[in-house]
C-alpha cells in the first residue's frame, strides 16, 4: 500500500486496531474491532468519530458569482455563516462531483470528494485561476450522532447555538477549528477542520468521551445509504443529472427562473419541467438477501429488458433489513412499485420506496 496517501491520524487508527483499506488513493480505516454493525448502531445511538481528512478542502477567494457559474445552486444568495449542498455539472447536465459550499464572509470554503479532489481543483482553476487555494495542512473529522452536540460543547460551548448547515470558525484549545453542523450519516453532527499538528490530540480528546467511538468507512457507507444520500462514483457520475438523481431540491428557484447560466442548464431545466426518463429511488428487497451495486431490475420475472439497476446496496443495521438505491425508468419509480432484482440467476422481488430509509435527525 506504499503509494497510498495517509492522513494525519494514520498512527492513531493503527493504535485503535483499525483494519486499513485502499480508498480513493488513501489508506483508510474500514472498521475498528467493534465491527461495522456495532459501529453503525453506536453512531445512531451515541456519537461516532470519522476521519474524513481524505476529502478535499479548498478556499476560494472569489466573488460568489464566479463559483455560481459552475453549479446549479444559489451561491450568490448563500448567507454568511451558512453552508449549502452543491453539484459541479458538465455541459450535458451530468454530475462532475458533489460538494459543500460555505460562505465564510471574505471567502468561500468548499469540501469535495477525495477521489475527485484533484479534478475539482483543476476544474475550479480553469474558471477561477489563482483564487483557488487547496488546503493542504488541515485534517477533517466528522462527529456524527445524537450525542455529538454534548461532546463537542465540552470543547467549544458555542456549537450549541449552531443550526443544521451553519458554519463557524472558533478558537479552541486545539487551535482554530472550522466547524460546520453537517455530515453524511443522516444524524445531527459536525464536521471539524483542524490543523494537521493538532488533529490527533483533538481526536483523542473526542474519543476520551464515553459517548464517542471511532467509526470506519464501512459504517459510514451503511449510514449514508440508510439516510438516502447518494455517493459520488456509485450513485452519481457524469452520466447522471441532478434531476435524475432526485437532487432537484438542491437547485433553488432563483437558478430555475432567473440566474440560469450554469453548465448543462438546458438539459437540467428541461428535465425539471418535464420530468426525467429515469429517477434515483430507494429499493427494499423483500427477502433477507442484500442487492448490491450492479443488480439489474426488471418489471416482472420474465422480461429480458431491465427497467433499471442498483447503484448501492447493503444490509441496513438500523432498519434491520437489506436496503438499496438505484435508477429506474420513471414509469416504474412510484413508491410501492414491485420490481424484480436478478440475483445469482434468480429474480427476487424488491419494492420501490421513498428515501430516506430512516428519517434524518438534523437540528434545523
Amino acid at each position, binding site marked *: 500500500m506504499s503509494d497510498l496517501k495517509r492522513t494525519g491520524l494514520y498512527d492513531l487508527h493503527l493504535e485503535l486496531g483499525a483494519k486499513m483499506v485502499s480508498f480513493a488513493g488513501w489508506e483508510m480505516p*474500514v472498521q475498528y474491532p467493534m465491527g*461495522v*454493525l456495532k459501529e453503525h448502531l453506536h453512531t445512531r445511538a451515541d456519537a461516532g468519530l470519522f476521519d474524513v481528512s481524505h476529502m478535499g478542502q479548498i478556499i476560494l477567494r472569489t466573488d460568489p458569482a464566479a463559483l455560481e457559474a459552475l453549479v446549479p445552486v444559489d451561491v450568490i444568495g448563500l448567507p454568511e455563516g451558512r453552508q449549502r449542498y452543491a453539484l459541479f455539472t458538465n455541459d450535458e447536465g451530468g454530475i462532475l462531483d458533489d460538494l459543500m459550499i460555505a460562505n465564510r464572509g471574505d471567502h468561500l470554503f468548499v469540501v469535495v470528494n477525495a477521489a475527485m479532489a484533484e479534478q475539482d481543483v483543476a476544474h475550479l482553476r480553469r474558471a477561477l485561476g489563482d483564487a483557488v487555494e487547496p488546503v493542504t495542512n488541515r485534517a477533517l473529522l466528522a462527529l456524527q450522532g445524537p450525542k455529538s452536540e454534548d461532546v463537542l460543547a465540552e470543547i467549544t460551548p458555542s456549537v450549541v447555538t449552531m443550526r443544521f448547515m451553519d458554519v463557524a470558525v472558533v478558537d479552541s484549545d486545539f487551535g482554530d477549528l472550522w466547524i460546520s453542523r453537517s455530515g453524511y450519516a443522516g444524524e445531527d453532527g459536525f464536521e471539524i477542520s483542524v490543523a494537521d499538528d493538532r488533529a490527533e490530540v483533538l481526536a483523542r480528546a473526542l474519543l476520551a468521551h464515553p459517548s464517542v467511538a471511532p467509526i470506519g468507512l*464501512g459504517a459510514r457507507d451503511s449510514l449514508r445509504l440508510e439516510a438516502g444520500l447518494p455517493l459520488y462514483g456509485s450513485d452519481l457520475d457524469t452520466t447522471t443529472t441532478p434531476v435524475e438523481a432526485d437532487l432537484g431540491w438542491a437547485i433553488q428557484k432563483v437558478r430555475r427562473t432567473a440566474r440560469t447560466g450554469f453548465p448543462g442548464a438546458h438539459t437540467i431545466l428541461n428535465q425539471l419541467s418535464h420530468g426525467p426518463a429515469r429517477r434515483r429511488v430507494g429499493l427494499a428487497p423483500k427477502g*433477507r438477501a*442484500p442487492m448490491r451495486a450492479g443488480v439489474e431490475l426488471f418489471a416482472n420475472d420474465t422480461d429480458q429488458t431491465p427497467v433499471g439497476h442498483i447503484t448501492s446496496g447493503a*444490509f441496513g443495521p438500523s432498519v434491520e433489513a437489506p436496503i438499496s438505491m438505484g435508477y429506474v425508468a420513471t414509469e416504474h419509480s412510484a413508491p410501492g412499485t414491485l420490481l424484480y432484482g436478478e440475483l*445469482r440467476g434468480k429474480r427476487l422481488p424488491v419494492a420501490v420506496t421513498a428515501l430516506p430509509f430512516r428519517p434524518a435527525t438534523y437540528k434545523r
Partner: protein
Amino acid sequence: MKYTEQHEWLDEDEGIVTVGITAHAAEQLGDIVFVELPEVGSEVSKDDEVVVIESVKAASDILAPLDGEIVEVNDPLTDDPGKVNEDPEGEAWFFKIRVEDLSELDDYMTEAEYKKFIS
C-alpha cells in the same frame, strides 16, 4: 475434524458430514447479515456453490466439499445470520451431507495443518 482451504470445517459421523466455516473465516468476513442454505434432498457435487453468505461488505459462496446428498440444513441461521459470527464452529453449522466415498475426506487438512495454513 477436517478443514478445507476454503476455511470450511468438516465433522464426519457415520457417513454424514456436518459443514461449517471456521472462526478464522467468520472473523475475516466480518458481520454476517444473510445466509442462503441449500434444499434438503438435493444432490451436490464437490465444488458446487451450495451456500451464499453475505457480510456487511460482500457476498461469498461456500462450496460443497464432497459429492453427496444434503440431508439437513441449519434453518435457524436464515433468521439469525449473526450466529455465524458468534459460534461458527458450534451451533452455526450450515448443512449435513451424506457422503458415499468417505475417502474423499482424506484430501483435506487436519486441524494442525489448517492452523499452519492460516498462520
